[in-house]
């Protein structure tokens, strides 16, 4: 029988009262206050309410100003708040090219990423492309058309310009369009249409950093005035002369991507390219070379001729005039390597001297590289400027033979060696029109300013290489009263179709005919490729002998290298604070350019770092600060283009000095410059790395080996030092208080996120740094704060030089003070460093308020709102990757960058909080991307695919050196790479068990 329990005696006795109330939840009715017929509110109550009301009203009046967030009244069909839209587009500013995807949130472009479909740059981009999105929100842009300095409207401008152009045309006056290189077929057509309307029109292309020497050399040797396209990925041996093809040369993100493929090593791929670099300046490319020789500027041509002769003797060809250099040993080594890899080798040169380039063409021809690693038939369009054409224009301007000049996306007053002369020549032109994004150095001398759209507001197309197309579509309506230049030209020419979108579409319909692709497809993909069947061109050696003689001609004196800096390029983005704060990969300095000299040369001159020197090239001289830079050839000075802007905008004005002034004859390599020390005050540099050598710590921090050793043993130089304990020698993780992966408590049931970084294909270009800045709303802190070692970057690329005193070169002896001094020609290593997401994180245990805990997916997390700012975590971080908000970096006039104005703030990623003052921040492994990816997978009822989720840094890397993934997914690329014998942890003895692995760097020496 079932047992029954009674609740009380009432139930046992079945009391009638109990039965009546049994089913009511409440035994008694809830008390209700009886109305006792008194007035509801007494006088006292009234006064109380009054007092409360007044207090509440006054408190309400003290409320912070209301910020309005207005929802869509009519929601656009394609926009879901919180869900990003991506649009395929193209970045080309006359200098850098990338086919990109633009990420927009609620109609605002917030990030650009490489377009995986692109055969040029793939998913990778360089730092400048990453930073270009901030240019859209630059308040320094021109916001209205202007006539003679006065704001006006487009109608007035168009009427006046059309009338004046007609006037010039009717007088048979010359009309000149000066632009940077244009790779857009539709723009070129628009210019052709314009020229058809005004027949005396000539279009001159002008590259601020000139590659005219190469174009002319190809004219001489192949009858084709163009830059060839390169295939570094097919090269087994690369020899580069003063050529920074990874960082800056022509299409660097493309070349870096190709080059990286030859540097990858794994169980399947056992070979890597061998790379020789001969250069006077230490470039990013040179720092990645297997062999690097210091080639003085004065011997540059001679070295090329000597190399030609060495190859010629192997090939049985006629030698050029004899030439001797100080690097003959290196040249013969390079010649042997090239000859062994003939047909799969590549010689490139960064000189703008046509003689040099002719000899280079000769070498490549002898090696049979045309058709394999170099394609001149399917040329590159990225540089088209010819120096002579520019000189001719200047002559015409000075002679007063130009009736109207349109300066389109070009800034000659800033970038010509004699810019001031150009400015005064402009005064002799009746009609000067500037189509520019800002009131720059040239625009201020023009009558009509017709502000151009930002590329993210524009329609455009591009043909970077023959037959390779990409499109550009607006991702936002123009923020200001601007209009794209092509449309202006069409309007002034009175074209039947003036809407550039329609114009371009019509153009593309012709182009796409027969391809089976529609305009919509093209816009969606962003890229289009036409199979090209250009016949190979025949090499003509007629110019070779003379070029050889000219190149080998003896030069003397101090050499000057004017190079392109990875941050600033040609200076067109000089007002971009992300780029200004981007540390140069080599010098690790921000917010500056400088005269770099070797320590030997500095001692000869009697100058010290920070001294101001004056360098005179031809009739121009320039004053600038001195930086002592290891790796420079002696008797050499190097300075970067792109600085010293006077009309760039708030952030960029007055930063550095304008090295274009020294580029006499558009040359980047100049011999016989004069140097004098001036007595001005010393200069303060802002570097984010103040110590430059590894102090013999390679074994724990940055491991490297040689290809030969690695082929023998794939774990070469990758052993973990054991710790001596009472039980004998043990690995660090065996001496452990805590739970490890193999023990309970280390519970990562779902995912274990991590990154593997291949140090062999990380070249230090730093596009990850800017990508991270854009993705994670990293603030810009300015030069002063960088000088106080307070940069905020979540990822940095540590650069170390080898030292002559390194213990491995001195039988293990350690002389610490000497180990601080880099070698004269150091080996350079790069190491991206970000939060290591340690599974045994030193930072996590020390936080008093548990603001930095560990997630069940292996992430070291930061709860900003919980942080009280003791900074103990950063002290205890052996990798020093945490960043503290020393100030309020937004809405603060002390930091007047993009986060101090409402336009600039539009670039902020709404998925990432803007950190307040007094809290710690650091790499989150792009947790917002992980969450978005997981959510997408969950919606589709599946696990996230490998490669579907990428951190911003991994996404931006042109070399795919950073691989992100889930270690629990054994099929993932990251999980496989982490098991590779080359993988290691930084500082293994601390047993922090990071989720970031590095792979040993291998040198092919």
């Amino acid at each position, binding site marked *: 029988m079932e047992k029954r329990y009674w609740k009380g005696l009432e139930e046992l006795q079945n009391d009638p009262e109990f039965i009546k109330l049994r089913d009511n939840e409440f035994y008694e009715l809830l008390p209700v206050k009886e109305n006792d017929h008194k007035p509801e509110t007494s006088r006292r109550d009234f006064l109380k309410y009054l007092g409360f009301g007044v207090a509440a009203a006054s408190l309400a009046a003290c409320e912070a100003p209301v910020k309005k967030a207005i929802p869509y009244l009519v929601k656009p069909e394609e926009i879901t708040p919180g869900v990003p839209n991506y649009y395929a587009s193209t970045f080309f500013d006359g200098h850098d090219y990338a086919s990109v995807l633009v990420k927009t949130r609620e109609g605002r472009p917030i990030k650009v990423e490489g377009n995986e479909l692109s055969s040029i740059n793939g998913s990778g981009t360089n730092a400048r492309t990453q930073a270009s999105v901030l240019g859209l929100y630059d308040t320094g842009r021109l916001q209205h058309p202007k006539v003679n300095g006065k704001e006006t409207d487009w109608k007035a401008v168009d009427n006046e310009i059309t009338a004046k152009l007609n006037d010039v045309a009717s007088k048979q006056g010359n009309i000149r369009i000066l632009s940077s290189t244009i790779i857009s077929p539709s723009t070129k057509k628009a210019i052709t249409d314009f020229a058809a309307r005004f027949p005396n029109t000539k279009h001159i292309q002008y590259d601020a950093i000139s590659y005219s020497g190469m174009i002319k050399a190809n004219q001489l040797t192949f009858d084709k005035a163009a830059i060839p396209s390169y295939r570094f990925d097919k090269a087994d041996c690369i020899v580069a002369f003063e050529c920074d093809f990874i960082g800056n040369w022509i299409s660097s993100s493309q070349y870096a991507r190709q080059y990286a493929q030859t540097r990858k090593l794994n169980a399947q791929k056992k070979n890597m390219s061998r790379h020789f670099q001969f250069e006077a300046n230490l470039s990013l490319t040179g720092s990645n070379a297997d062999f690097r020789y210091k080639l003085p500027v004065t011997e540059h041509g001679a070295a090329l001729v000597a190399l030609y002769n060495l190859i010629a003797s192997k090939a049985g060809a006629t030698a050029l005039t004899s030439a001797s250099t100080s690097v003959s040993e290196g040249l013969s080594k390079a010649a042997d390597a090239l000859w062994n890899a003939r047909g799969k080798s590549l010689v490139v040169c960064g000189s703008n001297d046509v003689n040099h380039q002719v000899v280079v063409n000769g070498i490549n021809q002898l090696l049979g590289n045309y058709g394999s690693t170099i394609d001149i038939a399917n040329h590159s369009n990225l540089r088209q400027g010819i120096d002579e054409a520019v000189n001719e224009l200047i002559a015409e301007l000075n002679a007063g033979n130009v009736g109207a000049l349109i300066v389109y996306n070009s800034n000659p007053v800033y970038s010509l060696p004699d810019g001031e002369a150009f400015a005064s020549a402009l005064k002799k032109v009746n009609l000067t029109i500037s189509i520019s994004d800002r009131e720059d150095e040239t625009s201020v001398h023009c009558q009509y300013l017709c502000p151009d759209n930002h590329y993210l507001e524009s329609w455009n197309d591009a043909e970077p290489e023959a037959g390779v197309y990409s499109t550009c579509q607006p991702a936002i309506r123009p923020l200001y009263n601007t209009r794209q230049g092509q449309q202006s030209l069409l309007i002034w020419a009175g074209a039947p179709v003036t809407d550039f979108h329609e114009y371009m579409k019509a153009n593309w319909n012709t182009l796409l005919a027969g391809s089976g692709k529609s305009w919509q497809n093209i816009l969606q993909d962003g890229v289009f490729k036409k199979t090209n069947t250009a016949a190979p061109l025949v090499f003509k050696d007629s110019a070779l002998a003379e070029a050889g003689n000219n190149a080998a001609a003896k030069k003397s004196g101090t050499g000057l290298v004017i190079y392109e800096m990875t941050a600033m390029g040609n200076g067109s983005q000089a007002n971009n604070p992300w780029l200004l704060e981007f540390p140069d990969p080599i010098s690790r300095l921000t917010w500056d350019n400088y005269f770099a000299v070797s320590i030997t040369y500095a001692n000869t001159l009697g100058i010290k770092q920070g001294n101001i020197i004056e360098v005179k090239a031809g009739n121009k001289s320039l004053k600038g600060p001195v930086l002592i830079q290891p790796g420079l050839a002696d008797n050499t000075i190097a300075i970067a283009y792109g600085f010293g802007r006077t009309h760039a905008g708030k952030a960029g004005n007055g930063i550095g000095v304008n090295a274009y002034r020294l580029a006499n004859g558009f040359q980047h390599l100049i011999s016989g410059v004069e140097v004098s020390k001036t007595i001005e005050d010393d200069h303060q540099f802002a570097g984010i790395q103040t110590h430059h050598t590894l102090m013999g710590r390679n074994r724990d921090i940055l491991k490297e080996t040689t290809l030969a050793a690695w082929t023998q043993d794939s774990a070469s130089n990758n052993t973990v030092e054991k710790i001596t304990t009472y039980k004998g020698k043990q690995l660090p993780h065996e001496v452990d208080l805590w739970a490890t992966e193999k023990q309970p408590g280390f519970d990562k049931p779902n995912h274990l996120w991590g990154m593997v970084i291949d140090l062999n294909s990380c070249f230090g270009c730093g596009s990850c740094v800017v990508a991270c800045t854009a993705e994670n709303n990293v603030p810009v802190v300015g030069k002063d704060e960088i000088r106080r070692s307070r940069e905020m970057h979540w990822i940095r690329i540590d650069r170390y030089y080898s030292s002559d005193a390194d213990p491995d070169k001195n039988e293990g002896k350690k002389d*610490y003070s000497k180990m601080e001094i880099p070698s004269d020609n150091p080996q350079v290593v790069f190491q991206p460093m970000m939060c290591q997401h340690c599974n045994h994180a030193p930072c996590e*245990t020390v936080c008093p308020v548990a603001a930095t805990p560990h997630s069940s997916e292996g992430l070291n997390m930061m709860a900003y709102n919980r942080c009280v700012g003791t900074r103990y975590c950063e002290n205890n971080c052996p990798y020093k990757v945490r960043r503290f908000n020393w100030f309020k970096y937004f809405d603060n006039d002390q930091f007047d960058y993009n986060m101090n104005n409402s336009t600039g703030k539009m670039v902020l990623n709404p998925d990432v909080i803007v950190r307040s003052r007094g809290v710690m921040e650091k790499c989150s492994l792009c947790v917002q991307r992980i969450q978005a990816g997981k959510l997408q997978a969950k919606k589709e009822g599946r696990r996230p695919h490998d490669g579907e989720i990428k951190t911003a840094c991994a996404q931006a890397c042109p070399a795919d050196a950073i691989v992100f993934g889930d270690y629990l997914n054994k099929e993932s690329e990251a999980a496989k790479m982490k098991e590779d014998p080359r993988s290691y942890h930084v500082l293994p003895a601390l047993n922090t068990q990071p989720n970031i692995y590095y792979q040993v760097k291998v040198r092919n020496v």
Partner: protein
Amino acid sequence: MGHFKESDLRLPLILGDKSVHQITEDICRPIEGKANKWWWIAFSIASAALLWWIICVGYTVGTGLGVWGVNKTVDWAWDITNFVWWVGIGHAGTLISAILLLFRQKWRLSINRSAEAMTIFAVICAASFIVSHMGRPWVAYWPIPLPNQFGSLWVNFNSPLVWDVFAISTYFSVSLVFWYTGLIPDFAAVRDRAKTKVRKFWYTILSFGWVGTAKNWQRFEEVSLVLAGISTPLVLSVHSVVSMDFATSVIPGWHTTIFPPYFVAGAIFSGFAMVQTLLIITRKVLNMEEYITIYHIDMMNRIILITGSIVGVAYLTEFFIAWYSGVEYEQYAFINRATGPYWWAYWSMMTCNVITPQLFWSKRLRESVFATFVISIFVNIGMWFERFVIIVTSLHRDYLPSSWVMYSPTWVEIGIFIGSLGLFFVPFLLFTRFFPVIAMSELKTIVKTSSSQAKKKGAHHES
């Protein structure tokens, strides 16, 4: 009042044949009389410093920690240096009152009151640095495990900073109670002598109704003993816990097991040095040379000599262990201390902390007021540098050479340090004016009226 007979070999603890009444008169004089010129000068300077402290801290809290010189690598510098320095200074008081009480060292009675006061004010200064070094001082209460409405948020008991919160707050509260307990009979004495209504009113409140019955005294003695028992482990634990801020970390130069005893010895060392500095001035200004005698100074100098030697041995041990460990980073950290960019800080520390106290082997110097004062200042400076060396030189060059930086303070940090001296001296000077600076009731227990008379008699007999 137990007047006791003592050995002829022992030196008298109070000079000048004081009668019990005379002691009361002497010690109450600063409270009942007017402040002299020196006091006013000192108080004005201290108040100005305190005002400066308010300005500098206000500026820091209002603008951000960026106004300091700390950076991405050296996240702690003068702030925590000063914190540890002040906590260390706060060590002598409790040691004197608690440990010396348990060891029946009667000479402590002349100095324990002011040493304890120093402890209280030094710990306040130390705590001010904890709060002001925070990025968000307005949430400074978060490291305290308070029940809250933030969800399941709780403090991280693994963090040495939480241990610090407990250690410092316990130390402060126990020291305060101990100090106040000792003050009660003396407040009562002042109350009973009060000639003005105001004084009577305040000291009545302060003296908690003490009437001086035998039961009062019995309880007083018992409570003192119990508090001494509680305080004794605290003397050792506080600085051990503070040292664990460093010892439990992974930073070379911090991560050493020697830290707890080494820090405790250093704290006592610096605490006594500060007591010397203060008492040498106080005894002069308040005319208390007969209570705080050369004998007291000598005794404290001996403690300084011992603890200074312990500290010196600790420094050498660190070097030995760095070499013996074979750990690259540890070795570099110590070589860098001695020969790196901050060598001057290291050698200042070595000179002040290891060499100067060794001078106290000389009895002449131990008994010289001037030498003691100078050396105590040296020790104060040396102990400040010790913390600076440990914190800044360890941090500025740790594991990855890419992050190695230099640190230099800004005027704000220097200002807060100078200001904290004001934060210390303003209450200390007020203490000398309003509180009996010597525990007079207890001191009366060692007045040697009878024994010195006996001695005189004895001398008479022998002759």
